[in-house]
């Protein structure tokens, strides 16, 4: 268990070594592709299992059983659903703008995956250790709105268009406060590198940013809910008024791609919350559980996964509990509450960092 990722590296190296006859740049490309797959495949598997986990969580909260037929405890339910979607016919509405209609789910899905390139799973365990990692994630998540806008417009359906417009307005509004929250953390740490931000929280849970940045963490989490179009901000797919929102004309794999992208984004937001405010891969108490023999439950990536799952549970909990916001209330919360608070917080944390000699 100790060097799980190291052993994972062995097959990658083996694959690369069998292609040694290729010229140098192609070997490099192949190596990168292997690394990318090493992130994406577990991620997609995680999406499948987390969809199942979430359905079980909702079921438990509503006193139901949830999926329990396919496989033991219904564990294979997501794969059955995926297979079903795969076998369905892809329907393109006759009035649709075909190219954009088919491009939209691809955009959503690939953007959701691309952001994972800079997420550090453990110390030094990151695909691209960018100096502007935070900005990169922010930039990619701000692009997510295009998938929805393209889908809504190309469907040539009024429900889809309305949902797309709503969603775009919502995502643009909440992005502003997310940006300011990120600025407070960046000023505090003095770096835009995600690994540096996590490293600044090393040495026990009392160093985590959640304590110094509690209001910011709350704003970030709520904005993350809005950014991923989840309850209580799931107006883009408000089934009572807009049928299923921008996805209404989609079927088969196109629909599945939207779904996968949405969940990959949710996991990304959970990962970001734990990286920025909850110490990323650091264990809450240094050395905790390190002494148990034969296992290494203190491995950094494992702690990271536990934290991601905790926030994912919170997402599911909120979806099972809260009703939907009204649109004007949603806009009010974003522009009149979060924006002033986070704007003030930027000044406050910059001043505090200066006073404490962090800058």
């Amino acid at each position, binding site marked *: 268990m100790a060097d799980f990722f190291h052993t994972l590296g062995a097959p990658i190296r083996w694959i690369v070594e069998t292609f040694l006859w290729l010229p140098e740049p192609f070997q490099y490309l192949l190596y990168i592709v292997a690394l990318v797959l090493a992130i994406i495949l577990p991620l997609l598997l995680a999406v499948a299992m987390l969809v199942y986990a979430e359905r079980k969580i909702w079921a438990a909260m509503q006193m139901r059983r949830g999926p329990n037929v396919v496989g033991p405890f219904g564990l294979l339910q997501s794969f059955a659903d995926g297979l079903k979607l795969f076998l369905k016919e892809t329907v393109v509405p006759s009035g649709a703008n075909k190219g954009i209609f088919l491009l939209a789910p691809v955009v959503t899905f690939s953007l959701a995956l691309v952001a994972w390139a800079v997420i550090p799973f453990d110390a030094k365990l990151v695909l691209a250790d960018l100096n502007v990692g935070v900005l990169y994630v922010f930039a990619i998540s701000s*692009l997510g709105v295009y998938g929805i806008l393209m889908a809504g417009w190309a469907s040539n359906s009024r429900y889809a268009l309305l949902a797309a417009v709503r969603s775009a307005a919502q995502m643009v509004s909440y992005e502003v406060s997310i940006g300011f929250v990120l600025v407070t953390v960046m000023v505090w740490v003095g770096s835009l590198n995600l690994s540096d931000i996590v490293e600044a929280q090393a040495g026990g849970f009392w160093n985590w940013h959640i304590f110094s940045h509690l209001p910011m963490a709350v704003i970030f989490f709520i904005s993350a809910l809005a950014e991923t179009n989840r309850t209580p901000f799931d107006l883009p797919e408000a089934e009572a008024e807009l049928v299923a929102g921008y996805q209404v004309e989609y079927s088969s794999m196109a629909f599945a791609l939207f779904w996968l992208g949405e969940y990959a984004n949710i996991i990304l937001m959970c990962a970001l919350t734990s990286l920025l405010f909850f110490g990323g891969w650091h264990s809450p108490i240094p050395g905790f559980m390190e002494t148990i023999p034969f296992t290494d439950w203190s491995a950094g990536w494992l702690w990271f996964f536990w934290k991601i799952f905790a926030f994912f549970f919170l997402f599911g909990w909120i979806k099972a509990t809260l009703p939907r916001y009204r649109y004007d209330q949603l806009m009010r919360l974003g522009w009149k509450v979060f924006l002033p608070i986070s704007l003030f917080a930027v000044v406050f944390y910059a001043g505090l960092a200066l006073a404490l000699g962090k800058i």
Partner: protein
Amino acid sequence: MIAALSFYLFATVTLLAGLMVILSRNPVHSVLFLILAFFSAAALFVLLGAEFLAMVLIIVYVGAVAVLFLFVVMMLDIDYVQLREGFAQYMPIGGIIGLMLLAELIMVATARMVDPPIGLGSGPAIPDADAVTNTEALGRLLYTDYIYAFQTAGLVLLVAMIGAIVLTHRKRPGVKRQVIADQISRTAKDAIEVVKVKSGEGI
């Protein structure tokens, strides 16, 4: 080799996308090609080692400005026949503007070859890329040497923003608005009244 390959890839995509912006008939396609052009331009910035500029280009232009573009264009009800009718009428003006831009571009390109490069003059030296990240270098420059220009630009934007709000804001009479403070400050005392009603009499 890979850097060169990626440069040619992104440069070609940028040029083609830029061309398609003006060639495609559907305005929504134009905006989407514009976004592609921005995106590959950001990739070119990354290749130059200007990662901060690349990210800001995507966040500001692609993530915010182009979204609003797309928003407006999506709402348009476009009549292609009418669009083509105006073409001849606007062609001279468009041509003149295009020529001016072309002349400016040529002047910029040639001026750079004649004059010494900016970094060698009296301006601040470019910091070593390995020692300082380019976010830090940009920040230092903006907040020290160019602080007045930077703050003035910020003020101009602020004034423009307030101006836009003032111009578009209108107060209509008879609109019911939710006042959350009023709702929260409401208590049971001023909302309900317990009345003893004698049977058979009513209130």
